[in-house]
């Protein structure tokens, strides 16, 4: 983590200062190469994501067929059910969305897209991954310790989470919290590295308005993360003390306050939504511009809207707590800010739609994913209004409507966003093209199935289904055949969707082994990562690129080619 001489800048043609490490350990395990670290993050994230998906299978089956043994899992007890729900949420957000979208793609793309050889602090980067890996191991261990995994929901509201007398998971709860805290530290280090790299190490000629939008968005996301996570880290230390040594920071019997944790949690938790949203939004923009052969509509307006969203995201947090016992007058403030935040995001969506005007859209697999991101995310966006409005939230809070809403945001973000990026940059990562047919089968299977998973949840939620309940048998208004059928549809949709992921796995393996070799720039894209061979060599560029224009100059009139790479002089 050395800072070198500051005055040396713009050293185009600088050869890598360090030979490529050749041994297996140095190359694949203890690598400091940003591409390898990015792929490590991504691989860990994919494994955890699959695990999270299987957890969903287990608890959906229990909910649909209460009390019966779930094939492959066994009987899901209340204890196990709570642990599965909690860890499904935690894993999907902290161990799938964040490592894949920010750390994975961020590490892989940032140095390539801004035209430099590595992150500014390669060893800090490696440390960040190692801490993340440690946190992954801790969360996995927390699932199998005596007493079972933590079951107090991913929000971990005390006093339930603060005392083993309440949650009955004396080991699971502290380990879960420890894992989350470690994960935060890993991403803090990563975020500092990202921000410093993009601020300081851009290729000559790359002003702030020539940065590809995905890099911008990852940076904004990292800054949001760094600025919001601090109070929660402090709060987590206090909660860990409550759990392990028995202080009473959050226990009213000793003078603590349970609402304090809720505030600290959501002060982080709401910006966190944008932390994972923005990278996915950025990748979508990249892919849409390339396959629409269009300049991104109003690049600057999109960015200003994103900044506005980032700022507003810090003042909306208590809309998660409308019925939590907060001062009812504060609810007005947070209603207003919450509805206001829909404005910049609507603006971004309009700009994305407007990008398609006058386009020449090629429906390749990455483009299908990107378009489906916009289409699906809109559902998540508009249903958020119901929950941001305090009065309707009284009814909908903690119902399956909420579940459906945030899955319509997080599914596009985490899963569709991941597939968008992965299918688009696969040639760059591995030097081979993916199979289009399998890719399209996988796309249609997943997209159709996912709507069957979550649309029924809107209806059951409005009908009164509450979250995190492992059976509705005791509720006369909920244990009806009609609602049961809707839950069944949802569960079947999930199983179909999970099965279609096998197509993806097969596609990756087939393409890795027998895919067509990818040339440097198979998509005829403008950004700098396509300048270098696929996969990029150690040090990324044989000759460090210089930037002459913005990243979205497609179909410029008067040019023979319909693209104009950033590094080609006019």
């Amino acid at each position: 983590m050395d800072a070198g001489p500051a005055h040396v800048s713009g050293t185009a043609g600088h050869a890598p200062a360090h030979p490529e490490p050749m041994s297996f350990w140095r190359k694949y395990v203890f690598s400091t190469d940003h591409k390898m670290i990015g792929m490590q993050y991504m691989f860990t994230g994919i494994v955890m994501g699959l695990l999270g998906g299987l957890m969903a299978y287990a608890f959906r089956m229990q909910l649909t067929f209460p009390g019966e043994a779930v094939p492959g899992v066994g009987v899901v007890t209340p204890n196990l059910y709570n642990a599965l729900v909690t860890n499904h949420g935690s894993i999907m957000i902290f161990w799938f969305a964040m490592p894949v979208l920010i750390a994975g793609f961020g590490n892989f793309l940032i140095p390539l897209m801004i035209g430099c050889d590595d992150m500014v602090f390669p060893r800090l980067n490696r440390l960040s991954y190692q801490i993340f890996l440690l946190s992954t191991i801790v969360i996995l261990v927390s699932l199998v310790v005596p007493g079972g995994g933590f079951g107090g929901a991913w929000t971990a509201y005390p006093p339930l989470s603060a005392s083993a007398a309440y949650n009955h998971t004396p080991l699971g709860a502290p380990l879960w919290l420890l894992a989350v805290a470690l994960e935060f530290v890993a991403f803090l280090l990563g975020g500092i590295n990202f921000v410093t790299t993009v601020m300081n190490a851009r290729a000559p000629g790359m002003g702030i308005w020539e940065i590809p939008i995905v890099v911008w968005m990852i940076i904004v996301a990292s800054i949001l993360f760094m600025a919001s996570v601090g109070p929660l880290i402090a709060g987590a230390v206090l909660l860990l003390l409550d759990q392990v040594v028995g202080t009473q920071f959050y226990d009213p019997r000793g003078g603590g306050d349970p609402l304090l944790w809720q505030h600290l949690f959501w002060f982080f938790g709401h910006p966190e939504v944008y932390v994972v949203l923005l990278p996915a939004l950025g990748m979508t923009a990249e892919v849409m511009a390339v396959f629409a052969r269009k300049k991104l509509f109003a690049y600057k307006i999109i960015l200003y809207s994103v900044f506005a969203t980032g700022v507003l995201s810090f003042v909306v947090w208590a809309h998660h707590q409308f019925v939590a016992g907060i001062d009812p007058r504060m609810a007005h403030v947070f209603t207003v800010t919450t509805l206001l935040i829909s404005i910049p995001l609507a603006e971004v969506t309009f700009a994305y739609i407007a990008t398609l005007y006058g386009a020449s859209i090629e429906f390749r697999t990455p483009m299908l994913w990107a378009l489906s991101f916009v289409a699906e995310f809109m559902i998540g966006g508009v249903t958020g209004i119901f929950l941001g409005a305090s009065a309707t939230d009284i009814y909908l809070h903690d119902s399956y409507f909420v579940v459906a809403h945030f899955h319509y945001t997080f599914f596009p973000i985490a899963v569709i966003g991941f597939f968008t990026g992965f299918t688009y940059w696969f040639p760059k990562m591995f030097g081979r093209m993916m199979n289009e047919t399998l890719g399209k089968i996988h796309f249609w299977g997943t997209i159709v199935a996912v709507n069957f998973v979550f649309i029924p949840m809107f209806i059951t939620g409005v009908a009164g289904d509450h979250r995190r309940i492992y059976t509705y048998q005791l509720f006369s208004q909920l244990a009806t055949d009609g609602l049961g059928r809707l839950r069944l549809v949802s569960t079947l949709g999930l199983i179909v969707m999970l099965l279609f992921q096998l197509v993806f796995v097969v596609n990756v393996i087939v393409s890795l082994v027998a895919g067509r070799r990818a040339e440097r720039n198979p998509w005829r894209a403008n950004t700098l990562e396509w300048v270098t061979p696929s996969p990029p060599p150690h040090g990324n560029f044989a000759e460090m690129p210089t930037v002459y224009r913005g990243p979205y100059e497609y179909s410029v009139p008067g040019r023979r080619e319909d693209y104009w790479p950033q590094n080609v002089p006019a």
Partner: protein
Amino acid sequence: MAHIPLAATRSVTGIPAGRLAMWWVLASEIVIFGGLLASYVMLRLQHPDWGDEASHTSTVAGAFNTFVLLTSSLFAVLGHRAAEHGDGPRAARFLWMTVGGGAVFMLVKAFEYTFEITHGFTLFRSVFWSFYFAATGLHGLHVVAGMVAMGLVAVGARRGECLHRVELVGIYWHFVDVVWIFLFPLLYLAK
């Protein structure tokens, strides 16, 4: 020495990467301590009776520790000046004096903790004391981390290596000092 990527040699902002990163570290540290202290202040205002609890903290020890940290900060900045003049061994000496200041601080803290715990003011007495130990403990961890980092930098500085790190570790140390400047009135003076 590990290789320096070309990326680290660029400085588009005009601030060296190390210092830029250090400011971002501090920004994220400010929110950690900010969240902790904001929580403390809110609960303190909720509980008027915490003033009585606070009267058992030792103002003398707190004041002496403030003095120690301020002085060590002076050494750190003097070390930075020496490093800027290229005088590695002198910078290293100042850094070791700073480390010494940190050690004195921790020593006083240890005596304070011992005194308090043996007199019944433990972590569990009330949430005020929980906050007292959590906040000073978290700060103490930062002091120890700063001492370790400073020792490592001092070893290099003595040989004239990586002198720019003297400034970075100094900035961090001053931040730890600033945190204490706020902890002192919050925990010791407000009674």
